[in-house]
């Protein structure tokens, strides 16, 4: 690489870091501005002298029942949806990657159409259906759509991973005297696990991010997830949108994402790129 290129890459790398992290830094900084300063107006990136709030906004937001409840809902709903979606997707992806059967193309096409589906077009009829079934404003009422909409991504990611597994090894193990269950458990599961895990992370991100279903299919804190709760968030002063309090809530809701990204960066990148590219 020439020096010119190298400088270009370094500048590019710095640009990426600024691009990605500046807004995050901003929302963190905003979360430390005091609510009084926000009311009178406190422009600027950093809290001004005397306009800082310390950890006040965080303790306020954590003390807020609605917010705590929303976090609980989001974690619960997202985890259950992820778990179920990945199980179902694993079955389907295994069939797609390993078996010959009629209807495979139908599955892939359906998945594709659903991945492109305009979610808003569904919420009206879904609301109508859910209230008939009595699952409006419940965890289940959100888990079902989350599963359906994460299945395409999970199926793609998993089938891409599964195609890379040397399935012959299973037979080889059986020849060596392992039962087929043992062969599956000792050979295939460890090879498939990273793929399943990756699909799970991507599914979780989707469920955690969802807003349209979250505001349309809930109406109380019984099931309202974080994004909807943030958009409806009410501080102590109902007439004044609590920007810095909201920012603290936003930061709290981002912590799980950052933790997951820090821990599993490689797997997520692999998962996002696996569908598009061979290998």
């Amino acid at each position, binding site marked *: 690489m020439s020096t010119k290129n190298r400088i270009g890459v370094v500048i590019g790398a710095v640009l990426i870091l600024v691009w990605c992290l500046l807004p995050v830094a901003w929302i963190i900084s905003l979360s430390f501005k005091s609510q009084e300063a926000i009311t009178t*107006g406190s422009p600027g990136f950093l809290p001004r002298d005397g306009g800082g709030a310390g950890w006040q906004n965080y303790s306020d937001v954590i003390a807020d029942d609605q917010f705590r409840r929303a976090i609980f809902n989001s974690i*619960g709903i997202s985890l259950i949806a992820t778990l179920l979606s990945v199980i179902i997707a694993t079955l389907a992806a295994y069939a797609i990657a390993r078996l010959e059967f009629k209807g495979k193309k139908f599955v892939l096409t359906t998945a594709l159409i659903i991945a492109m589906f305009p979610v808003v077009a569904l919420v009206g009829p879904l609301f109508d259906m859910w209230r008939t079934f009595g699952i409006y404003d419940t965890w289940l009422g959100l888990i079902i759509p989350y599963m359906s909409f994460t299945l395409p991504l999970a199926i793609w990611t998993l089938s891409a991973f599964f195609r890379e597994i040397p399935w012959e090894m299973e037979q080889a193990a059986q020849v060596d005297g392992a039962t087929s269950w043992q062969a599956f458990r000792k050979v295939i599961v460890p090879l498939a*696990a990273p793929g*399943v895990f990756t699909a799970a992370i991507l599914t979780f991100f989707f469920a955690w991010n969802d807003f349209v279903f979250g505001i349309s299919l809930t109406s109380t804190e019984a099931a309202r997830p974080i994004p909807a709760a943030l958009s*409806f968030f009410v501080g102590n002063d109902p*007439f*004044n949108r609590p920007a810095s309090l909201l920012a603290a809530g936003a930061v709290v809701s981002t912590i799980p994402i950052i933790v997951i990204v820090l821990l599993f960066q490689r797997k997520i990148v692999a998962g996002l790129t696996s569908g598009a590219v061979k290998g």
Partner: protein
Amino acid sequence: MGSPMRSGSRRRRTGVAVAALALCSSMLAACSGDDSGKATLNWYINPDGQETLNKLADDCSTDDYDIEIQLLPASATDQRTQLARRLAAEDSSTDLMSLDPVFVPEFANAGWLAPFEGDLADEVVDDDVLEGAADTVMWEDEVVAAPQWANTQVLWYRKSLAEAAGLDPEQPWTWDQVIEAAAENGGTVGVQANRYEAYVVWINAMIMGAGGQMLEDTEAGRDAKVTIDTEAGAEAARIIAKLADSPAAQADLTVSNEGTSLGQMFPEEGPGEFMVNWTFVYKNYEGQVDQFDDLGWARYPATVEGEESRPPIGGIDIGVGAYSENLEWAQQAAVCVTSPEAQSQLAVNEGLMPSRGSVYDSDELKEAYPADLLELFRNSIDGGGPRPKSAFYSQISSAVQSVWHSPDSVSEDTPGRSESFLNDVLDGKRLL
């Protein structure tokens, strides 16, 4: 090879634990109602005065039932959407709800509110209830909700600014005077002009202040007569355009709400503002700012000189869900949370004004508010100009917002466009 397997099984265990937790929590919720033998009444409140409302919920709980508070979103539109969706789903757990008066007709018309009957109706709306407030809970000759508190807007201002502008506090002020006074003295005028409900509040108050109204014959529902393209409508448009063009407009005029202009009253630099805003403002500044003594109040500005202004009317009515499993108890509770004592607490602690006349005379209130301010509030509610009482109010409001926003686009054709658009919307000929 070992480690992915181990983490795999740990994951599985976590998953099971979460699923189990979810089951437990839903079962717990199902059980708690049956086990204790005590019913739970859900009360959906809007966020004003949460602390006192929580206390009222406790105080009004009895041996038969506990009142539990559920918080609704901040904006009136979102509050309506959340409640209406529950009621459309015929939800039996919506027992009590705090309703913005403008949505009462719509809910009553849809059959979502259980009317108060007989003695109960007389108790909820007796002679003590201010007329403006009592009117909001009547629909087709039935009492469909109980007035809990009444809100109104007055003109809040800095005495020093008004003095510098030479405004006479003994005379009623007009919008023109206020805007000019602010502009000439480096001050600003605070209004609510974001694309949301309170912008309609402002427009409606100005139209009514000029002797007009947005619609006539609103009981006719979709066939109501739209009367925005009138002299009164033109006056309202003129004032909005005047403010938008004036240096007195605040920088965030097009996204302004009840909160954004609060900070402009006592800014670090500059003489402050004139601001039309609800009654909560007094408690909001009291004890919070050094120059509190400089805060003045006056009746809502007049649209035309010589004609008395019609201040906005708001507040909260308590409705009882038609599908509630504990209708009688819920209505009992509604009476309790709207009692004179309850209203007095809301006024003293939260700055939410009573809908009952007698409460204004109570000692607690007299202690908490200057006498002239109390009288101003009461007169404003008495002489207030309510928004159209229609089962289609939310469409009306949305249609008005979409033509009149943003305020800096308002011109002399705005009333005409607004009228024809609103007619089309009511006829179902246009999208909102």
